[in-house]
């Protein structure tokens, strides 16, 4: 079922997914998925459990490489250099330096707030202390967390509330000035107030970075994203401008999901 609708907006692409397959061992999880990821826009992936949206997301930063038995097919071409980040010859470390990730359950390191955010810079090396401190502050401001933690940068990150921890993880993802940030159901473990703070953040962040967000919550996708892709059992069923998907989807399956006939 590959009935996609392609909006030709002419917007520059940050990434282009071409015929992406993914296999867990012999089990095929993604089936020839193709979708454009527009630069400095928010693209959302929605769909019922098991549709492959998180699997697709984790292809972008080669997370699947960490576990044996996984196999990619097809390409994801990253701009501006048009490199296929799924190519085995491409170093996953480099990919992860360009594309960072915010996970579903906040997972700050058992370190200080400062060290949590600075980590991405530390592994890269080559920066002066003052520069690191400055970038950490910028990242914390970018994650709307600076005012709350500026007096306790050297206390443990684990002592923050759930919502604050997730913003800490967002700051950690921003500190290296990435080209793209992947959000894997970032608010599913948060209360509504924390959730809306994160959603506001996403709105602002997209001015600087491309955002790809997986969400179980359709309303969230409708709120924050510019483009939305609906997936179902490994296929990308429909991809379009968000408004269109939620008001006038072209595909019956999409419509059934949106209107809650199944989930």
């Amino acid at each position, binding site marked *: 079922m590959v009935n996609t609708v392609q909006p030709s907006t*002419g917007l520059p692409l940050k990434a282009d997914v071409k015929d992406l397959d993914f296999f867990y061992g012999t089990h095929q999880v993604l089936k020839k998925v193709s979708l454009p990821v527009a630069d400095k826009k928010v693209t959302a992936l929605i769909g019922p459990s098991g549709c492959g949206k998180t699997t697709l997301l984790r292809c972008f930063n080669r997370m699947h490489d960490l576990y044996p038995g996984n196999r990619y097919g097809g390409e994801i071409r990253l701009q501006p250099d048009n490199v296929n980040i799924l190519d085995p010859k491409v170093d996953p470390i480099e990919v992860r330096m360009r594309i960072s990730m915010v996970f579903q359950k906040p997972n700050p390191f058992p370190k200080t707030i400062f060290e949590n955010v600075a980590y991405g810079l530390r592994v890269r090396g080559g920066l002066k202390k003052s520069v690191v401190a400055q970038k950490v502050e910028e990242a914390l401001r970018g994650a709307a967390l600076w005012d709350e933690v500026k007096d306790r940068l050297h206390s443990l990150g684990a002592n923050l509330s759930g919502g604050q921890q997730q913003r800490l993880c967002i700051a950690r993802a921003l500190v290296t000035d990435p080209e793209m940030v992947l959000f894997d159901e970032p608010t599913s473990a948060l209360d509504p107030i924390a959730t809306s703070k994160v959603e506001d953040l996403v709105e602002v962040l997209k001015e600087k970075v491309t955002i790809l967000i997986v969400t179980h919550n359709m309303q969230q996708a409708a709120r924050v994203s510019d483009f939305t892709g609906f997936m179902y059992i490994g296929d990308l069923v429909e991809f379009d401008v968000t408004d269109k998907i939620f008001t006038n989807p072209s595909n019956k399956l999409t419509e059934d999901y949106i209107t809650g006939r199944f989930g």
Partner: protein
Amino acid sequence: MTKNITTQPSSGPSGHLPPRGEGNHGFPSPLGRGEGEGPEPLQKNIPTGQPRLSITPADRRRTRMRKMTEAVIRGGLFLAAVFSVFITVGIIGVLGFESLSFFEHVSLVEFLTSRVWTPMFTNPSYGIMPLVTGTFTVAWVALLLALPVGTVTAVYLSEYAPHRLREVVKPFLELLTAVPTVVFGYFALLFVTPLLQKMIPSLPGFNMFSAGLVIGVMIIPYVSSLSEDAMRAVPMSLREASYAAGATRFQTAFRVILPAAFSGIASAFVLGFSRAIGETMVVAIAAGMQPNFTFNPLEPASTITAYIVQVSLGDLPQGSIAYQSIFAAGLTLMLMTLLFNVAGHILRKRFRETY
């Protein structure tokens, strides 16, 4: 804000995306009108310039260097892990090498069948059996104490004792494992033996019984700890099913839990036995060092381990038969331990419950 959103017709049934021209790779006009359709979804004046690159050639260089050192580090760690194999090779090598020399001078038959072990005499005799009987006798005395006491302790702690009591008692039992074996030897010789002599007047000052009892106490924490772990691993649902059928704690423990935990408890037994036959100092101090072919624990005797200590305390010219005899004795001990470990492994596999 009106949005004129029109879309291209869907692609055909083959479902592939229409081929895209060069323009898609990023260099359209800032206002983003393509073929005259599909306006920008968000009417904001954000310049949509080219996508950017966030890593520098310096970053790339540093990462490459890091990967080279990674390979070296990985190799070093691998060598460390493999080193443990060399230890085993060393043990087998030394024991084997010296034993081979030993058996050039002493017949295997005499070694295995003679009941007299007197390597230091002018007319030496090399029968390992007295040492083996000594080892076994001490071990079975120890196990006769440790297995029932250890298992019952485990049952009590896991099924009967209130939580607070368990938290207090367990560290105490673990403390037993912290006591050095020479201290146990001291205890066996200077406290247990005199005490037993009050009850059994004919008991000699050096005897296997005291040594065995003390070794048994030494092993209790191993048996009880492992058995208890095995029992705690049995899921609550099995217990609940038993209680729901009207069983008492005792019945549940012995009819349901113990059988389910059998493989773990069997390992505990095997471990206890291995420790008992490998124990050295308690026997060396309290059982006397006279090889004695007997199964009667009320007599003094020597074990394989005590013999090795005895010889080591004296003068040992390298290459002499007496020197080599300790390796032959050690080899026998290793083979016995190995046998029991294998037996334990088979037992565990046969009786392993999956729930």
